[in-house]
């Protein structure tokens, strides 16, 4: 190994690390606010990339139908609940309309736009609009009524949601992989390093998103409400913050971050319907670095995971995944020495 090889590996590791960092941030965010260990986080990466691939082919992506179907289910569920509570029919219709309006509008735009094969950037925006609502809808269906259950129950639900979403991915996108066109085809040479435009986009967007999240949590009322919910659910509720609303907002953010990550790495690799799982899992390993609570530690952990992966694949490619996932053990050990009395929350 010489310096040029090392620098190429560092660049590659940091590029993947940036994506893992986004995954880790979403994982920490979801866990802090809702106590859900969100295993299906990676699925939104695959959904994002493959939805764009379908739009590129001029087809209506299956994720649109998933979003509409989930919205209908949620509307029906809400209506049934309200009916039992004795709400007037006019209000029932209003509530259902509220749930269905946005998904129906996005569905209609997709239907119109899909065969027209619009500009790549417009299609990307449409992709984000299709995938993001799936997050809160999934929360409403799978987690909301269990919001006060133990972490373990929520984890088990997550495993179920993961399988359901992966299975749907296979139906919607098929077993073969796709590679999206690059957003920026330029290449820059710095010595032995060749920096692709896409890598620059990945870094810029990741950093920008982290900054935006930081501003969101520090400066906006919604962000502060989320933080309050993360610190103390009951206290937040007493202050008039809807924990249900906080959960849905969190899941919307998680789905948005996932879909955006999918758009970012879509042009650099071939993505399959089940590719997201491992990406999400590596984000989870990174989140463990921060004890599922610290955002900066999770982001640093993600870059470390990315570097470990790229150097691991150079030295011992057959054991790459083993190396990446074994790192979780010493980290857990170190954390348990640091916080010996960190009782499991029940």
């Amino acid at each position: 190994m010489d310096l040029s090889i090392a620098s190429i590996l560092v660049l590659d590791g940091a590029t993947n690390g940036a994506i893992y960092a986004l995954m880790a941030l979403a994982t920490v965010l979801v866990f802090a606010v809702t106590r859900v260990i969100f295993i299906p986080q990676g699925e939104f990466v695959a959904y994002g990339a493959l939805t764009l691939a379908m739009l590129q082919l001029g087809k209506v992506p299956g994720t649109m139908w998933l979003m509409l179907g989930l919205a209908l289910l949620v509307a029906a569920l809400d209506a049934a609940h309200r009916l039992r509570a004795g709400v007037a029919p006019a209000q029932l219709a209003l509530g259902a309309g509220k749930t269905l309006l946005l998904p129906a509008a996005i569905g209609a735009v997709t239907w119109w736009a899909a065969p027209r094969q619009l500009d790549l950037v417009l299609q990307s925006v449409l992709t984000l609009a299709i995938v993001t609502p799936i997050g809160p809808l999934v929360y409403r269906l799978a987690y909301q009524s269990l919001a006060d259950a133990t972490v373990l129950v929520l984890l088990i639900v997550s495993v179920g949601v993961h399988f359901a979403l992966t299975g749907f991915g296979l139906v919607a996108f098929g077993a073969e992989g796709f590679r999206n066109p690059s957003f920026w085809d330029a290449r820059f040479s710095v010595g032995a390093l060749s920096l692709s435009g896409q890598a620059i986009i990945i870094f810029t967007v990741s950093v920008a998103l982290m900054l935006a999240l930081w501003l969101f949590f520090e400066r906006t009322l919604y962000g502060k409400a989320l933080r309050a919910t993360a610190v103390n659910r009951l206290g937040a509720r007493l202050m008039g913050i809807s924990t249900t609303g906080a959960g849905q907002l969190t899941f919307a953010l998680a789905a948005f971050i996932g879909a955006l990550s999918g758009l970012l790495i879509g042009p650099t690799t071939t993505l399959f319907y089940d590719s997201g799982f491992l990406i999400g899992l590596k984000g989870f390993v990174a989140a463990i670095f921060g004890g599922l609570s610290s955002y900066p530690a999770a982001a640093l952990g993600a870059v470390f995971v990315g570097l470990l992966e790229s150097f691991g694949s150079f030295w011992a490619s057959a054991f790459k995944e083993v190396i990446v996932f074994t790192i979780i053990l010493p980290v857990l050990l170190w954390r348990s020495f640091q916080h010996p009395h960190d009782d499991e929350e029940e």
Partner: protein
Amino acid sequence: MKTIALLGAALAAALALGSARADVTVGVSLPLTGPTSALGIPAQNGIKLWPTTVAGEKLNVIILDDATDPTIGVKNARRFITEDKVDIIMGSAATPIAAAMSDVAAEGQTVQMMMSPVNLPPGKGEWSFRLPQSTAVMAVPIIEHWKKTGVKTYGFLGYADAYGEAWLADIGAAAEKAGIKRVATERFARTDTSVTGQALKIVAANPDAVLVVASGSGAAMPHKGLVERGYPKNKIYQTHGAASLDLIRVGGKDVEGSYISSGPAVVADMLPDSNPSKALGVRYINEYEKVHGKNSANQFAAHSFDAYILLEKIVPLALKKGKPGTKEFRQGLKDALETMGRTPVSQGVLNYTPADHFGYTPETGVLLTIQNGDWKVVPH
């Protein structure tokens, strides 16, 4: 009492009728759902195109789904033997299931036509015959081309799974015999996001050729990774697992000029007339694409097509030994397969012997190159 006696008599009559029938029955177990359904569904499509008779006898086909689950595959195989009294078991298209079913087939002394190139330990699989080519046979055209173009060293970049392992062993043995040395052995997984590390190491070792072992669109990412690191496209070789249009779709201009080892069926129309599989392959493509549309022909349905060619050849021979549904007939089928001699099918030339149940002869594989987004056969 009387009713029971009557029932008993009816049952006995039904059983007698059952054994007296002369239909040839084939029990097929395929993964129609689950992770390998991409293999099972086209194989089933191929079977559905079979004629309703074979060698003048009526042909019964029972198709069951094994859901990519070895337990269900074994259950299906047992059902075929004890309830349906089949003469031949076919399947499965997934390796672990086909392997698990082979024990049941041997126990029930029924020929199993595997739709997957399963490696079994010595002494096992006495009644099991493979329809897909072994990796050793598919390595032949690659090694031949390496010898011809003076390749002395090669690098290996393959899946970290059974498919990669089989290729590593088979290409290793054949290359060693030809005096070609492996200078880099790297692994990756289908869902990896990058192969930069592996590609760097291979490019640093500077081999004369690189073999990429992967399947379908998963073969494009390592290929592009190598090209990105400056490795020349026309020195990259791919295996038959990648011989589908998905490689070209995802790989784009980066796979232009690369080589790929393939069975003859999917490219039958481009083969020279001297190729023994040409006529059968063209017939297969025409029959299959008439029903399933243009460019739908694939290697899995071709194996189903070939199974019928074998049935046409072995059923008349076995009929001389006994009636369908009997032990003698089943033994006759096995003997016929093992002694039928050189038999061209759409996917190559088969020649099963009692010792070799893979059967394909070295003339089977075809080397293709990619030109202007389509396959082109590389002449020998």
